């Protein structure tokens, strides 16, 4: 088998691995979950007790304060967690993400207490 075909098959196999991981983890990157779970969410964040405006939230997380994610809410919460954990270690932010799945009841997610 040629190297090119081997690389192609490895790419396909990697997706199978990601699809398997997605069965045990809320992560849905590279695992083919398009428009399967509709999450409406709202982000509330404060920095040292001061609430952040929608613009400040967008600048900090590159996410709108109110939005919609059709894949997995993990994409939103994972981004916020990464930003706080890696980019702003010196600051103490309190973030609450309130979300609904397919229009059902609200769920909260919090940073840093999650």
């Amino acid at each position: 088998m040629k190297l090119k075909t081997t690389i192609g098959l490895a790419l396909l196999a990697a997706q199978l691995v990601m699809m398997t991981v997605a069965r045990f983890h809320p992560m849905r990157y590279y695992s083919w979950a398009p428009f399967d779970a509709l999450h409406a969410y709202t982000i509330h964040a404060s920095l040292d007790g001061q609430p952040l405006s929608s613009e400040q939230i967008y600048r900090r997380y590159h996410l709108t304060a109110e939005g919609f994610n059709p894949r997995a809410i993990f994409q939103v919460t994972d981004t916020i967690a990464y930003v706080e954990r890696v980019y702003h270690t010196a600051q103490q932010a309190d973030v609450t993400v309130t979300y609904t799945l397919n229009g059902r009841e609200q769920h909260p997610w919090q940073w840093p207490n999650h």
Partner: protein
Amino acid sequence: MAMAQPLTPLTPPARTPPTPAWLRSSWNPLRITDTRLHPQLLLMAKLVVIGLVLKGYWHTLPDVFAPLLPVMDALPEPWFYRSLKALFAIAATGLMFNRAVRTNCIIIGCVFLAATLSSRVYYRNAKFFVALLFILTGLQERGKEPFLIWWQLALMYFGAGLNKLTEPDWRSGHFFDYYLGALRQSDLYTTLDPLLPQGYLAWTLCWSVITIEFTAAALLLFRRTRPTALWLAASLHAGAAILVADDYGIFLLAVLASYLSCLHWPDPQQAHLHTTRPNHWLHTYTRWLDHDQIFNPHPAPPPTPPTPNTDTDTPHTDDHTTTLTAHYQSHTWHNWRAAGACLLWTPAPYFLAAILLAATHGGPTNAAIVRSAGIITAAILAAAFLHTLHRHLRRPSS
């Protein structure tokens, strides 16, 4: 006595180095048969490039932000984005003009793969699909069937079906009730839903999608069943286009273009076109738009008897009627089916469709175009189904 002239030594002709393959191909962007890629794969790649450019995807390539590979945080901030953009521009231009097509496909694929890896916010399934489509096309070996792309499609439909099956709201039907009813307020859904028992329409839609995705995934793996798989999957996307009127960014165009990988493309001059009228519009059409010269035009119909593969729409013999016949290998088509074959094997209609589908993004115009495309696709699929059914019913029983 004439003096013998001294012989001038013969200098060996200067040996010109062979032209590299990437320079030998035609520069005509409307040609697709002149490269190391299968014509249908090159056409697919060009259509997706058109979609990416018209939908502005290359403008919105990201800089590194919360990357999925943390090591990418070390990449210099404006230069990563600028490099992706420059690489895409160079590779896309090269691809459209038939230069180093496989290399350029790999570059475009890697640009989008790197982009999705570089930002958690940027990640979308459609962008990942585009990345894979280009990389697998670039990895295509010469003379081999594009089975990597077929397997990729099968894997995508299997993954999507599996994910839906594990979602309780998909199993109960609540998903479509919320999505089409409450969220999208689809006029078609809200009209049909009250006519059926409570929740029946949403439940049927959910399970139809799951069943079609699993079935298409399985049928894509085998040569004999691949057309059925494509018919099922295209029905799914046509239905979604009619109900939701959304192309999901580049996804709809990319997935429909990827079906071209299952099409067989004739070599130049291998398909024959006959008409009883020399100035038939199809002759003009092929003269202007068949840049690969797939069709070999003839002024009169061929004196061939009908074959088992001949379609049932036999030509009229009336002197006042223009008849049209196209044949390729053992297949013969007449009249509107012959015209269909001409449209099928020239890239121009595909380019036009891609431009129409990608020229607008969001808003009522885009919704109207997507819904119209869904209706046209559904009509073509229904015609293909009826034609196949008719052929099977006509087939003599053994």
